[in-house]
């Protein structure tokens, strides 16, 4: 049922994206920014939309546009190899991951990259960049090397690419940033410089969001690993950086990389964990409650609040909708009317985000009692 509501959305959003992209194209060119950056903006934008699951995924028109662009560049490069072509064929049947929309984009980009004769690493790197989320799968690159896409428990995904003879071309300016706060996501392409590396893990790309649910906050973490001939060492470094990023971001990480569990130092104000002190309260009652406050079972300030809060707890916050999104409606008002405590709302041109999904309306009429 709700799908019917969402159907108009993709078209509307698509058209908005198209309009914006087309109109800023001029601005981009005036600034001397390459068209490719514009395409990257568009891809990033669409990926985030898909990730939010508020809207549907890619349009087939855009896939065709990608293909057209890829073919144009293929003609320019004149380095199309048979291997590339055959392995492009290999790609589609292997993609059986759940996120089909993302998968469809992959072969186009790989096709694009391999057609220009770039190496597997660049292909993989470019692959990692636009898609954002790579499905859990193994991809065969243009040079027959297997990319392993691993998905860690927390949602971050690592693309480990065994490389032995790689000369990588970095297409994204790499920047090392330990990250901080809600830093924007930077995708870093790291390249081992030369071939003949005995160790397999040469490139580790961590392009995505780190979702910390400890505080019910989604934070975009930027994690980057350094490129150097020492693979495993860098994994440790990367993990340390991940830890630092997380610690900086929310202070919620107890030092273990990317856990979705609540850190142990969080005080539990309600729930099963407090039964011990509550039992004591009930048994002892009267003045001895004050004594318990002085005793303080290791939970500062909590004992005081318990006798008060235990009655007030309506557990509203816990029973809130499945998503943490605060449901927001952004719109314009035609008329707001009130009679005593009866309010009437006449709204228009609004975008709603309810239970994690997006809805749109041209008119909305509502009633509420205050």
């Amino acid at each position, binding site marked *: *049922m*709700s799908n*019917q*509501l969402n159907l*108009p959305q993709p078209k*509307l*959003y698509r*058209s*908005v*994206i198209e*309009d*914006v992209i087309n*109109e*800023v194209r001029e*601005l*981009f060119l005036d*600034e001397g*920014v390459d068209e490719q*950056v514009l395409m*990257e*903006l568009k891809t*990033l*934008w669409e990926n985030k939309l898909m990730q*939010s699951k508020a*809207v549907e995924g890619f349009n087939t028109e855009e896939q065709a546009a990608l293909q057209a662009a890829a073919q144009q560049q293929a003609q320019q490069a004149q380095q199309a190899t048979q291997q590339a072509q055959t392995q492009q064929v290999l790609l589609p049947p292997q993609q059986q991951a759940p996120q089909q929309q993302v998968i469809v984009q992959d072969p186009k980009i790989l096709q694009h990259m391999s057609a220009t004769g770039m190496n597997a690493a660049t292909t993989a790197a470019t692959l990692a960049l636009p898609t954002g989320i790579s499905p859990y799968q193994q991809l065969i690159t243009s040079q027959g090397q297997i990319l392993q896409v691993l998905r860690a428990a927390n949602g971050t995904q690592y693309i480990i690419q065994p490389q032995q003879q790689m000369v990588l071309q970095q297409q*994204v*300016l790499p*920047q090392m940033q330990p990250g901080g706060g809600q830093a*924007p*996501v*930077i995708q870093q392409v790291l390249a081992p410089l030369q071939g003949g590396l005995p160790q397999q893990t040469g490139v580790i790309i961590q392009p995505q969001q780190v979702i910390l649910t400890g505080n019910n906050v989604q934070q*975009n973490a930027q994690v980057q690993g350094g490129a150097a001939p020492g693979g495993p060492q860098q994994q440790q470094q990367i993990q340390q950086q991940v830890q630092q990023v997380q610690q900086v971001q929310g202070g919620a990480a107890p030092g273990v990389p990317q856990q979705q569990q609540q850190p142990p130092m969080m005080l539990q104000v309600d729930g099963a964990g407090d039964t011990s002190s509550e039992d004591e309260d009930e048994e002892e009652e009267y003045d001895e409650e004050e004594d318990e406050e002085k005793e303080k079972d290791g939970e500062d300030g909590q004992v005081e609040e318990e006798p008060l809060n235990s009655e007030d707890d309506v557990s*509203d916050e816990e029973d*809130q909708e499945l998503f943490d999104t*605060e*449901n*927001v*409606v*952004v*719109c*314009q*008002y*035609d008329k707001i009317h009130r009679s005593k405590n009866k309010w009437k*709302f006449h709204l*228009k041109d*609004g*975008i709603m*985000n*309810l239970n994690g999904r*997006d*809805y*749109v*309306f*041209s008119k*909305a*009429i*509502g*009633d*509420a009692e*205050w």
Partner: protein
Amino acid sequence: MAYQLYRNTTLGNSLQESLDELIQTQQITPQLALQVLLQFDKAINTALANRVRNRVNFKGSLNTYRFCDNVWTFVLNDVEFREVTDLVKVDKVKIVACDGKNTGNAAE
């Protein structure tokens, strides 16, 4: 100038995040990003006014209301949003509404 109201939506936020990424990698300037956002404001306002044609009803209880700088902000509880095809219930919703009579103001 159109309302900057719609920047805090899925569409707007994803655009802002993407622009921030490009700024971080220094592929675009902040000035250019701002221009893009202004363009987005125009586009979304136009699209909503012209391309959307559906109606929604809702009912609930009003928790708080605020009217400041010609912007209404409401928090409603236990609301049902009803469209012809569907019904959506939420425990809490925040409604931010700018003046719809004239889109001459850019509310930041």
